[in-house]
């Protein structure tokens, strides 16, 4: 492996060299940003934290361009200095997964991270304006750019978001950022269970622009954000809609960061109205609901058959734990979809260098 013995490239050219290099032919590369959220795959660890640095930040254009290895915390601090933020609230999963390390922008994008605001503002994919990456042949590819609307050519930006490092090595990402609203309020109600989830859906069906709707051991919560007068008005109207609900202090970072514990941790994406029925099929599990039931966090022991509980009402991804036999942490695709995915993988990474044993 010659001059990159540390396997920590510090620029795109070094990434290209490594991918083209001989080491890769035997065993592949396990791509690592900060190792805080990704799936740990086979292959020699390639530490991408050296691809760091903010390249462009234009608060007036709501745009940030940075090396994929840039620490998330550094970006969040920079944005906060201009009263801005990443709207999609990337979770910090270190506590729940028992990991250490420094989360990177590339990891956030590769996992398509999203927090409680997803149902209003989308996931990382919805805020990703452009990418640069090195494909499996060592070629540099760019897609998208740094502007808000861009339909020029096939959208490889979306393809790379959530690809879990299976198609290429992200070297640079461009993200849309958001102004931090001047006010925010959380309302909490006494309802729990199916009734609590129904209250959350009722709030989401109102015109009051809900940016969080979660239920768990912490309570049953609805969040609104915006201008001070508007937040006060909407809080009042929501209290009319949901009698008995009151303003409470709320830690949404706790909701964001997977508020369950267990030997296994799962993230279920389900049809909101089916959430309670899915939960009933998971006896003894530690559960929390986000996105008005669209997201269920599950902490449980290995004995529980989580996929069987979902039963066609959504999708289950295991974030922590071991699975038996052929089962895959991220679940199975329909045969036609799996064939297309394998085809895309073969085109972008023909030697199977990236994250062997990964999602595709």
């Amino acid at each position: 492996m010659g001059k990159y013995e540390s396997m920590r490239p510090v620029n795109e050219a070094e990434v290209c060299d490594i991918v083209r290099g001989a080491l890769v032919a035997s065993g592949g590369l396990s791509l690592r940003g900060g190792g805080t959220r990704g799936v740990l795959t086979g292959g020699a660890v390639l530490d991408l934290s050296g691809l760091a640095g903010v390249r462009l930040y234009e608060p007036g254009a709501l745009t940030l361009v940075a090396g994929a290895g840039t620490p998330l915390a550094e970006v969040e601090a920079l944005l906060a200095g201009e009263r801005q933020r990443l709207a999609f609230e990337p979770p910090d999963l270190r506590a729940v997964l028992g990991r250490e390390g420094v989360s990177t922008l590339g990891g956030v994008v590769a996992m398509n991270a999203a927090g409680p605001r997803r149902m209003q503002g989308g996931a990382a994919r919805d805020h990703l304006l452009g990418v640069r990456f090195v494909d499996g042949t060592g070629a540099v590819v760019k897609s998208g750019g740094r502007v808000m609307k861009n339909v020029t050519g096939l959208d490889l930006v979306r393809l790379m978001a959530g690809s879990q490092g299976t198609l290429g090595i992200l070297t640079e990402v461009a993200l849309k950022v958001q102004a931090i609203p001047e006010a925010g309020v959380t309302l909490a109600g006494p309802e729990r269970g199916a009734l609590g989830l129904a209250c959350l859906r009722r709030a989401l069906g109102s015109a009051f622009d809900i940016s969080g709707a979660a239920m768990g051991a912490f309570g049953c919560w609805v969040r609104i954000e915006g201008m001070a007068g508007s937040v006060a008005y909407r809080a009042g109207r929501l209290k009319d809609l949901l009698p008995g609900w009151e303003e409470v202090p709320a830690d949404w970072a706790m909701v964001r960061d997977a508020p369950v514990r267990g030997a296994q941790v799962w993230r279920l994406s389900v049809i909101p109205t089916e959430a309670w029925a899915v939960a009933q099929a998971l006896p003894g599990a530690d559960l929390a609901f986000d996105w008005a039931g669209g997201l269920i966090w599950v902490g449980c022991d290995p004995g529980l058959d989580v996929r069987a509980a979902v039963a066609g009402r959504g999708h289950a991804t295991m974030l922590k734990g071991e699975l038996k036999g052929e089962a895959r942490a991220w679940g199975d695709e329909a045969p036609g979809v799996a064939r297309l995915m394998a085809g895309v993988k073969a085109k972008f990474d023909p030697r199977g260098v990236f994250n062997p044993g990964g999602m595709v």
Partner: protein
Amino acid sequence: MDMPVPDRKVLEAKPQIVARLAEILPADAVISDAEGLRVYECDALSAYRCPPLAVVLPRSTAEVSAVLAACSALGVKVVPRGAGTSLAGGSLPTEDCVVLGVARMNRVLEADYDNRFVKVQTGRTNLAVTGALDGWFYAPDPSSQLACAIAGNIAMNSGGAHCLKYGVTVNNLLGVTVVLMSGEVITLGGPWADAAGLDLLGVICGSEGQLGVVTEAWLRILPKPEGALPVMLGFGSNEVAGACVADIIRAGLLPVAIEFMDRPCIRACEAFAHAGYPDCEALLIIEVEGSPGEIAEQLGRIKAIAERHAPEVWREAASAEEAGRIWLGRKSAFGAMGNIADYMCLDGTIPVSSLPYVLRRIGEMTEAAGLAVANVFHAGDGNLHPLILYDANAPGQLEACEALGAEILKLCVEVGGCLTGEHGVGVEKRDLMAVQFSPADLEAQMRVKDVFDPGWLLNPAKVFPLGASDPRRSGRRVG
């Protein structure tokens, strides 16, 4: 603009191809006579026309599948078509292709308010999706929304005025049923947020009918806001109006829409819609949503920023009817301009911070070219629509107009922007792709098409410069 030489063998086999399609579809779903084909010879990029070999109008996913499987077996190219409103020539036929129109597949299959989605067949028009809902709406709103189909919206990843707040099609698309060129029917995504595997749904969206034919879609819907109010701001110059937009965005205000028009466009729209537009150099239409109190709060902030730029006019819509006319004027802008001249509509996007500079440069370049330009666009997200005016009957004017258009788009790329923000590449920007993308970038995109359509039969002469796609289209390289 060049198109590939038609496949002589396919042209000669027209009777057999039409006969095969007639076996698959009811008699009224196959068009092959010269008069009937002329209806489909172009889309909204009407400078280019070519009647196809045949047109099919299937009524179901199963019929779409049968048509694509048959065309695949016969080696016949297929050009998918929604409502034919593409400004980029996305559904421009070739002589040797079958046009597959989805217009007859226009039903709402399911409206689920509790889970906040609607499932529709993609031939349904954009506005008719919201029209089928009670108290809810589908957010992306291209100006052609009365006519354009969801199929085309997905193919082009369409935007619209209100996308500043609500995002474009890809941000509001939950899932699709898509038929591959082989005839295989595939489901991507669905009524829950995350599906297994790679984001192929995101790749299908904006793929310009080159990967598959989308027949059904799950769309995210939103409760209608309590109210909305547009306000008009007039300025003495384009650059000052551009600077005002940049300041509003910088201040963290996010109106649902910030639209821009310059004087030539204001006059044409006023003559068309009688919306009471002021006669000034540059006009901003800013829309905010909410209760009366919330609207007043937002307008107060916007007014404070605008006043730093000394607007000549500040006028709030006095009634719902006046608000409707203000938007009618804006959404009719292309049609209104069409009443006074032929025009070419550009769609480049730039960083909002570059607005004042780019507007000045467009003015200078247009003057140097001896042409006129009218600007109407989505200022809040930097998505420009300069309309270059020309006379199609005057020799050389179309070419001069296209040359100026190319220069303006190169300027957009130069300042960090792109060739097209919401209309798509089609044939119109196809030959400019190398300005924005390297050969490796284009190769990566074409590899994705190789996976979905190995024979390069679906809408093959679009998006990629003909020289770049030739080895694949001519079958000298499969995949």
